[in-house]
């Protein structure tokens, strides 16, 4: 799979990472190389093979649907770069 510069930019936009022109050029080659290398999986016949979901056959644990946590707004905002009255502050998103 050959990845061109436009694709690199589109992916970077989806991933919300700003990249420089120089980075876009380097990534073009690196991503193409890695994707070409994983192409070898095409040799493996996976018809009728289910995707792996667990190591050992066991049921997912369940618990009572009750509140077990909460009332810790101070903890939740403790590390935020910008807050106001227990709210996270972000740049304006609606006009």
């Amino acid at each position, binding site marked *: 799979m050959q990845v061109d510069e436009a694709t690199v930019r589109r992916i970077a936009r989806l*991933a*919300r990472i700003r*990249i420089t022109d120089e980075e876009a050029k380097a990534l073009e080659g690196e991503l193409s190389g*890695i994707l070409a290398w994983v192409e070898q999986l095409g040799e*493996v016949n996976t018809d009728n*093979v289910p995707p792996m979901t667990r190591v050992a056959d066991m049921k997912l644990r369940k618990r009572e649907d009750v509140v077990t946590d909460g009332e810790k707004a101070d903890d939740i905002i403790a590390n935020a770069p910008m807050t106001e009255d227990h709210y996270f502050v972000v740049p304006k998103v609606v006009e």
Partner: protein
Amino acid sequence: MTDLTKLTLAEARDGLVAKKFSATELTQAFIKAIDAANPHLNAYVLPTPEHALAQAKASDERLAKGTARPLEGLPLGNKDLFCTKGIRTTACSRILDDFKPTYESTVGQNLWDAGAVMLGKLNNDEFAMGSSNETSAFGPVVNPWRRTRHGQKDNAKLVPGGSSGGSSAAVSANLCLGATATDTGGSIRQPAALTGTVGIKPTYGRCSRWGIVAFASSLDQAGPIAKTVRDSAIMLRHMAGPDAKDSTCVDLPVPDYEAEVARGVKGLRVGVPKEYRVDGMSAEVDALWQKGIAWLKDAGATIHDISLPHTKYALPAYYIVAPAECSSNLARYDGVRYGLRVPGKDLIDTYEATRAAGFGKEVKRRVLIGTYVLSAGYYDAYYLKAQKVRTLIKRDFDNAWSDVDVVLTPTTPSPAFGFGEKAGDPIAMYLEDIFTVTVNMAGLPGISVPAGLSGEGTPMGLQLIGKPFDEGTLFRAAQVIESAAGRFPVPERWWA
């Protein structure tokens, strides 16, 4: 007095109970050793001496009262991927900035509840993505081992492996009795092999992942790096266990692994997979493997050739699954709720600027690969395909378990390499994990035990792979190798 930092965890435990020294004396010895070594090795990104001495004081009170817990007063290092309440946790990424968790990881809490003392936070590759510890935002860790070339001492800095390079370097340099670590594709076993230490990645689900910074959630597991097989058994027992806060953590009792260590391997069936004899494998790695086979045979095990036909597909499948899951997990670093924020002209601009400044090169590369393989139209061709290949890899092992109880392989294709030697080529670096990554893909337990020295005088390890939740057998077989090969302490404290 003897150098307390040279003791094994088991020896230190017995010495504390016998009152030969106090937990405070033991902790002070490590603090002094860290002060002297850290400017040279960079193993700790945040030493916490005051925290350690407070814990040690409490341990001394319990030891005096006769209410000591199983790990009372034993100083450990904690990989910076484990959240520590009120103590900076960064995953060695700039994007977490000065993050101080308001909670403790379950594995960490289990250790402190058992009486252990935390000496500080250990360096690692950024978000555990790397095999050399060169991607850390705090700079690389130096391997305490040095190589000899053409009969000459070579002072080139060697990598300690990764991602748990701070853990492996700290244990081998006697800067802690043992350390926490995590393993997504080999990040416990490969650094253990490159530093002459023991590292075990338990079965997926044995240790809780709660409070550990997530990389690839279907692969990540915590485990210890320690000086001996016995020490690793003691540590794992007190790290593992059920946890209501992680639904993938199993409700199984944790056996007394230390009791397994001395049980020997009489009658144990050991498998040797032909697919691990890869092109370009060095003669010395092959010779080490043959020695391991002979040691286990001499101790009463039987040796069987086995086939794991999908082995060669494990690494390419891993480089779909791990980046896909990392791109999803790392979406949370957006500069809003914690960590770094680089202000932009609007919200999306803020996200993009924050993530550009906060993530390092390798992390960006993996997030982008992951975003690509998960993007519209590609899910089936990449992620789903890779998860199906995982099923085939696991079936290879399921088939093998009808003939053998444990599998023996080398841990790495080569010994420790120099700084920068593999940094330019992502795939060359990824190949470091060629023998370890299958174990993560199948969710199995694997241990690396030091088994000999390379032609350059640096350590090399052998890997044992076990059935799901059969870590006990790994400790039995690893002890046989350790008893035969001897231990591999760093020959020279060149930094002190």
